[in-house]
């Protein structure tokens, strides 16, 4: 970076000097401008070349597309009407807000397989050209990145530096904290100042970045509310965010681990608590359909028998009504593959029939 400034200064000197000379002599008028233009051209070219080789913090590398985000969530995520509403709208309004007062902080809650990681991935894909591989997306897995309890002090400094340097490079950075409920309190405390209403922290402006916390906390509560709604016969699309938010807040506050008693909640730094509802049989069916189409076996989608077989190989709860899938859309891929492989022997038995 220093070298760049020196170069710029040199060009400036050249430019000023030649102009001075040309003013004095009144003869070589063009030379100054020529040098200026060539310097400018060189400058632009260098910048573009750099962005061609490395990722830069502007278009086309960073380009939030609201329409594709909306379409992706609608097409790839099943049965999460609240997620669609909150995530798309909040990111959109934060992105287009010229002067946000604080970074956007979302907290995703729900059982495994309900799509928390998937949504985070979709958001990254629609913001950065390189998706999750972008240097401006920091995917932090608590159990993986910070395994040793005795090194918390080191981790604290490390995490702080990691966040600071990322936002220094790009204000539009996204931070994803997976398994946030397993993040030690000390580390959450280290994140806290970044989420608050400050114009700058250690000289870095955080107000345009996005923080996403993923956790299983409150999954039981969400399932309970959804189940009650289901049993009383109302459609789940009628569930509203407010019904969950209070519960989730209390829950993440009181339950052991991670967000427990943490300053994040008591200071109201989390903008939206987003519940991921447990998936019903029909949603898992959509997942199976999507996977089949991805594998190029669209013909099997209409094969009711086949899809039922896959669905039956998964686990459901509660014991009585078996309304909800206990693993969401996880394991669906594997189970579908298995059933597909099983078909072949059946086909060969058809052959067998023919031979007869």
């Amino acid at each position, binding site marked *: 970076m220093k070298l760049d400034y020196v170069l710029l200064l040199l060009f400036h000197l050249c430019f000023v000097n030649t102009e001075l000379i040309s003013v004095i002599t009144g003869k070589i008028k063009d030379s100054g401008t020529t040098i200026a233009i060539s310097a400018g051209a060189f400058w632009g070219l260098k910048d573009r070349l750099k962005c061609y080789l490395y990722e830069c913090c502007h278009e086309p590398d960073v380009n939030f597309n609201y329409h594709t985000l909306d379409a992706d969530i609608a097409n790839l995520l099943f049965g999460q009407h609240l997620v669609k509403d909150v995530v798309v*709208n909040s990111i959109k*309004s934060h992105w287009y807000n010229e002067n946000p007062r604080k970074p956007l902080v979302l907290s995703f809650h729900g059982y495994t397989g309900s799509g928390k990681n998937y949504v985070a991935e979709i958001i990254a894909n629609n913001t950065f050209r390189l998706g999750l591989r972008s240097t401006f997306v920091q995917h932090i897995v608590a159990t993986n990145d910070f395994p040793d309890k005795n090194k918390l002090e080191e981790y604290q400094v490390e995490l702080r530096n990691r966040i600071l340097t990322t936002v220094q490079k790009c204000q539009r950075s996204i931070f994803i904290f997976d398994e946030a409920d397993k993040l030690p309190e000390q580390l959450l405390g280290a994140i806290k100042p970044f989420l608050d209403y400050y114009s700058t922290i250690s000289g870095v402006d955080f107000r345009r970045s996005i923080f996403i916390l993923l956790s299983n906390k409150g999954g039981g509560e969400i399932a309970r509310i959804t189940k009650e709604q289901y049993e009383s016969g109302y459609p789940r699309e009628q569930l509203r965010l407010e019904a969950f938010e209070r519960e989730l807040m209390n829950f993440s506050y009181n339950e052991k681990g991670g967000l427990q008693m943490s300053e994040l909640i008591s*200071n*109201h730094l989390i*903008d939206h608590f987003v519940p991921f509802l447990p998936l019903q049989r029909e949603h898992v069916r959509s997942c199976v359909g999507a996977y089949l189409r991805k594998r190029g076996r669209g013909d099997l989608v209409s094969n009711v028998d086949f899809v039922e077989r896959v669905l039956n190989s998964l686990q459901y709860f509660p014991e009585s009504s078996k309304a909800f899938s206990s693993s969401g859309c996880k394991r669906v891929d594997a189970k579908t593959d298995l059933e597909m492989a099983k078909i072949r022997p059946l086909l060969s038995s058809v052959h067998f029939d023919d031979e007869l």
Partner: protein
Amino acid sequence: MFLKCLFYTCCGETDIFNYHALYKDFDNKIFGQHLMAESVVHSIKSHWHNEHSQKPLVLSFHGGTGTGKNYVTEIIVNNTYRSGMHSPFVNYFVATNNFPNKKYIEDYKLELKDQLIRSARRCQRSIFIFDETDKLQSELIQVIKPFLDYYPAVFGVDFRKTIFIFLSNKGSKEIANIALEHHENGKIRSQLELKHFERTLMLSAFNEEGGLRNTDMISNQLIDHFIPFLPLSKFYVSQCIQVHLRKRGRHDLAKDGEFMQRVLDSLEFFPESSKIFSSSGCKRVNAKTDLEISKMGFSLNSKKEFNDEL
């Protein structure tokens, strides 16, 4: 000298404290904090115009999150320095950010002392802000203490014209209780007076865990004013929503009672029984309002399409 001040921020004529603008800003941007507005404006004004102040002005802001403590300091700074928070004479310390690690406390102590002296030497009118004072280690508070006292000079630097502001959540429960009691007795909020709070705040700051606990700062009466930030009722939160709407250029929605109600419903209120005060103050208001706005965009569009199809 003049040329230098044109390019750099100078500690002189160009940065003038504007009393009227400060009062106007409080009036327009801060809602429901009549105690704060009065005492802050008057104390800063009299300190500023006092040529022979005996000690720096020390304010301690107390209150729940979202009641506007940070915002008020920002407004004060903006009305004191041309470049606002970016001014080199404004020193902003966030306890959890600037002094995170207990292991390096000795380093922090030296650093803090150096910075205080350096800033005050360059400008007598420096402002020092300590956020999350309740999380400041007491050893660091001991470092600050001599600068707040009645000394003509500390380490050869005159501190008597500087301003110290301490922000903390300490005592927010007590403030809420007093305000709630007052409300339940059927009295109006503007009848609350500073004296109702100051004693309680002092005690709670002194006795509660963390920060100012048992420090000489309080027992030596070095803090000039304890300023309570009252919890915000629905009425004031809706004013916050309106300001945000106007900022986003949606004047039309500010008059839409139904829309306002939707935003208010998405926030949390306490106590459980009467739901008078917002538990997050005006925090989260911006995010929730934005969410409702863009949701509306959706429903409007889809409604239109629906009608068209019919």
